[in-house]
């Protein structure tokens, strides 16, 4: 009985709801992959945590049907476990602590029982184990010759509201499981990476009387003020070369989009509509997508910076209040229900400015803060559904969504 109970308890842990996956479309033709754990040193809770993190990452690369059974095996056993003998691929890994207290991991990939790829990893502190798990998934993806998942290695920066007029700015991995608070205290929102290498960022400080855009160099921990505007100041996007910012400022109470040259410190007003123009995103060096209320409700428009030509992009929904762009693709957030005070559904949709493509990317709950990865391969977003907030990753090519439940707090805005 005791054994049965223990087994039940164990299975419960294995199948507990965190860090799991929502698969919108099942691709049954994918090769099967099992993961075998040969770890020593660490306790069972940690071993299981690592296993789950790895399984989640391996699912996100969308190349395998990953078996979720946690099975233990000695690292040097020649054969795969009997339960896994029909699996096309098996990853076997061994976690162990070295004399310096660092966490080491040896990993090998077996195809039909033969080792085809292997690599060792080391991190100084086991608390950042998730980066090893991301690195393994990245390497397996590279080995399989699939499109790069470079975005797995990128950092996410987000603001979390912790109380009225109080927020933190946090840097994390793409699943938000590792979190480091970089700015604590005060009222600071809308963080945006300042460059591709992610060694600096901008954010809006609302602590002084005038909203101010600040710049933080992570390496030197220096903070400098960039520009202020009465009413509102948000850095909505940063150009690929890092030299031009798209700002929403409200000179004289009028929220409009401005371009700001980082080198010359000069800004230029790009929109003049008397309602609301916000959330500008670079599509190319010369064109932006943005949200405007010029039809009486928020909707997505594009503008050529050189010619002032403005075009409506979305002809669906009555409240499309946020967007992110990559080339000619735009992902936007749409309110699906017309009742402002009932259970609202906000879904993400993908449109192209060059074809008539429109694709709904989410199905339930409140889905917001979409951000394309730099290479356009994936979209990160926040999903709130049935009282649970999760970070979501959409793999556009594979038509799959993955969710990582968030532990606490409400995300105010984020950048990837």
């Amino acid at each position, binding site marked *: 009985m005791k054994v049965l109970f223990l087994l039940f308890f164990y299975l419960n842990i294995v199948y507990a709801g965190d860090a799991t996956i929502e698969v919108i479309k099942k691709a049954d033709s994918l090769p099967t992959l099992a993961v075998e754990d040969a770890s020593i040193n660490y306790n069972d809770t940690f071993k299981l945590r690592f296993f789950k993190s790895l399984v989640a990452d391996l699912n996100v690369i969308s190349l395998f049907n990953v078996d979720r059974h946690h099975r233990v095996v000695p690292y040097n056993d020649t054969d795969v476990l009997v339960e896994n003998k029909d699996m096309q691929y098996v990853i076997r890994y061994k976690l162990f602590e070295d004399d310096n207290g660092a966490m080491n991991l040896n990993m090998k990939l077996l195809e039909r029982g033969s080792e085809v790829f292997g690599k060792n990893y*080391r991190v100084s502190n086991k608390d950042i184990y998730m980066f090893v798990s991301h690195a393994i998934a990245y390497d397996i993806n590279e080995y399989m010759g699939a499109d790069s998942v470079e975005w797995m290695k990128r950092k996410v920066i987000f603001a979390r509201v912790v109380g009225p007029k109080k927020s933190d700015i946090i840097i994390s991995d793409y699943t938000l499981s590792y979190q480091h608070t970089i700015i604590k205290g*005060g009222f600071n929102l809308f963080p945006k990476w300042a460059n591709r*290498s992610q060694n600096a960022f901008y954010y809006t400080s609302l*602590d002084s009387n005038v909203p101010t855009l600040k710049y933080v160099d992570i*390496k030197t*921990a220096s903070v400098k003020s960039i520009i202020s505007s009465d009413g509102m100041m948000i850095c909505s996007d940063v150009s690929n070369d890092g030299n031009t910012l798209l700002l929403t400022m*409200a000179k004289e109470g009028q929220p409009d989009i401005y371009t700001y040259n980082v080198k010359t410190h000069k800004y230029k007003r790009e929109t003049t509509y008397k309602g609301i123009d*916000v959330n500008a995103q670079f599509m190319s060096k010369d064109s932006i997508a943005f949200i405007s209320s010029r039809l009486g409700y928020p909707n997505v428009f594009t503008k050529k910076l050189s010619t002032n030509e403005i075009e409506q992009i979305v002809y669906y929904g009555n409240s499309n209040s946020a967007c992110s762009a990559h080339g000619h693709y735009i992902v936007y957030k749409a309110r699906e229900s017309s009742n402002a005070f009932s259970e*609202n559904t906000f879904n993400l949709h993908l449109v192209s400015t060059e074809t008539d493509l429109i694709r709904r990317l989410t199905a339930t709950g409140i889905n917001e803060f979409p951000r394309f990865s730099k290479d356009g391969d994936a979209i990160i977003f926040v999903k709130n559904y049935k009282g649970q907030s999760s970070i979501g990753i959409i793999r556009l090519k594979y038509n799959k969504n993955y969710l990582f439940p968030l532990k606490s707090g409400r995300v105010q805005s984020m950048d990837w």
Partner: protein
Amino acid sequence: MKSIVLSGVVTALLVFGGCSSKEPAVDDQAVNNVEEVASAPTQEVESVATETVASEESVVSSSTNEYDMNTIESKLPTIYFAFDKYDISSEMQEKIDAAAELGKKVASNYKVKLEGNCDEWGSDEYNFALGLKRTDAVKKALIADGIDASRISMVSYGESNPVCTDHTKECWAKNRRVDFKLLP
């Protein structure tokens, strides 16, 4: 006094810096590639840079002054708005008129900061802009009532400064508002 503590970036944040560059060969003897996922010494950004930001709380020096300011501020109204709207109803216009009277008399030595707020429906830039348009509508009404524009500053807090956090219709209505804050 408000302060911003900028803390160091720990090892993990440098991990990917390490990964994206060429993989360092750590041990030539190793059978497989050994990837040093993070270099052992934690590159801790040492300084805890504390930045002091001038804020309304830190400026007030005289207790008498503060008392006056708080007393007057408590008499100033909160202006409420309809869902997704920033126009002022006649009921709210009366409140603004009364506030303008205070502004011309007992509060004539102070400046005012108008703080725009929204309900939780929409947490993006658009919501901040909506909060700002509400603030701007109140500012214009105050100017029409004879208050000098130079005495008025504005800020939008979007949905980040709620007075009520229940998920009810009544609660959302309370959050769609503009508050008056006096500045010396």
